[in-house]
């Protein structure tokens, strides 16, 4: 079975799905909070324009989950501050 991990938990996916599609299929709607109001964010535009769906992949932050194809063994971490890459 194809799986990646989200904050240590295994998450199955269909090869060919993006990380966002797999996250949404698992019932998740939010996995990040905003810098100022700590507002929850998940997928919004789904096509790489809005940057709401950011995750950290294998330690690299600021990745748009809607654009990256899920691969077995990826370690996704969520919920981290989104400010480290732009300030």
């Amino acid at each position, binding site marked *: 079975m194809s799986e990646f991990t989200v904050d240590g938990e295994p998450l199955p996916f*269909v*090869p*060919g*799905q*993006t990380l*966002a*599609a*797999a996250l*949404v*299929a698992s019932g998740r*709607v*939010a996995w990040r909070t*905003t*810098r*100022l*109001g700590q*507002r*929850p*964010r*998940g*997928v*919004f*535009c*789904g*096509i*790489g*324009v*809005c*940057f*709401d769906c*950011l995750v950290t*992949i*294998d330690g*690299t932050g*600021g*990745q748009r989950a*809607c*654009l*990256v*194809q899920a691969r077995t063994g990826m370690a996704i971490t969520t919920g981290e501050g*989104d400010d480290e*890459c*732009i300030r």
Partner: protein
Amino acid sequence: MSASGDLVVVGAGPAGMAAAATALDGGLRVLLVDSGAALGGQFWRHPPQQARHAIPTADLHHGLPTYRALCATLSAHARTGRLTLLLNHHVWTTAREGDGFAVHAMDRSRAPEETAVVLRAPALLVATGAYDRQLPFPGWDLPGVLTIGGLQSLLKGGGVAAGRRVVLGGTGPFLLPVAAALAARGAEVVAVCEAAAPSAWLRHPVPLLRNPAKWVEAARYAGTLARHRVPVRTRTAIVGAEGDGRVAMVRVASLDADGSTLPGTERRIEADTVGVGWGFVPQLDLLIPLGCDLADAGDGTMAAAVDDGQRTGVPGLYAAGETCGVGGAVLAVSEGAIAAVSVLTDLRSPGRPNVRRLAAKHAAVARHRAFARAMAQAHPLPTAWSSWLTDDTLVCRCEEVTAGAVRAASADGSASDHRQVKQLTRAGMGWCQGRMCGPAVHCLVARDQPYAPAERLIATPATLGGLAGLDESTTDHV
């Protein structure tokens, strides 16, 4: 890595695919680059080739025979080596270089790894499409509220329906295929709220009569929606979303002629997912820094200004499809083919297609552009949409700037366009660089002019590590 050819096409949607196919048939060497994992762009978004058995999406598409024919043509040219197809490549900037262009991309097929790539050619076609136009409303940033394009991309690209009980809203014909696709994948579409009045179409009978294929398409969606008992409510808008951590309730209301909500008509509908779209905004990020002129697209946005051969005013630079104004995939295919014929002509290539076929393409473009103009007039942004906002409604999702802050910045006359609002409030200064809030901020302060996006020198984030890997000494360009 670097590569070169006669033509670089950025965007492998309907316009880019048609342009590449026509240019290749005419004998050119083409580099076709797209950020997606498969050919098709947003309209024909597909899972990667090897995943299509596991994620069937053919029933969600329209015009697939054209898509498959273009795929077959492109595959044949890829085998001869004249087509270089670069999927999962994100173009982050372009530059004039001598008589041609250098197109800088990041290969992100092994993301988060990035590999810098430079593509060079004397001709550049930008066919980067469009994205959903959004108008803010109270609660629009709650999880579970998506753009309708986002709902569609999850369906077509991943086979995933993002919710169980869905309300769609906004304006324009794109609401219907998304509602139909959601219903086909088992979601309950509780309501489709179309802000426009259907009678608006009666003011444009000629473009309707001249495009019977559009009737057939609309009838097909209407049939699907009727079968799934999806109610379509016209002159109605989503004016609020509520929930704790995710959307649980949607507020909808009837609109009067100017778009204000009619007192006493507001209803609350339980829903776990909301999809919203108010037409589209052309994606001009690569064109504006190259000096491409813009023109009023007639729908409240500016689009690339082109001649009848899809030439911009910049020598060697062409645009086709939604970058020239939103008008649909059939139009985009025709414009892409016409753009490629112009490239063949301008590069003095012998392989130009016959004149009669070209005349038919020009006639198709004229017909579909007329239809797009009628569509824009029949589906305008409601004049009074900002009356749905409270002062604490977020307008800029990234920097969390409220409608009150935007209004305060423009109230005393200190900000008269979205760039000045950005300087005063940070609206548009965050991750998305104003792509989401820009059209709305513009409407709040300068609604009488069409929206022109800010110039963005970097079209998508690129890491210094990725750039450092660009070793031009190992290039293979000819």
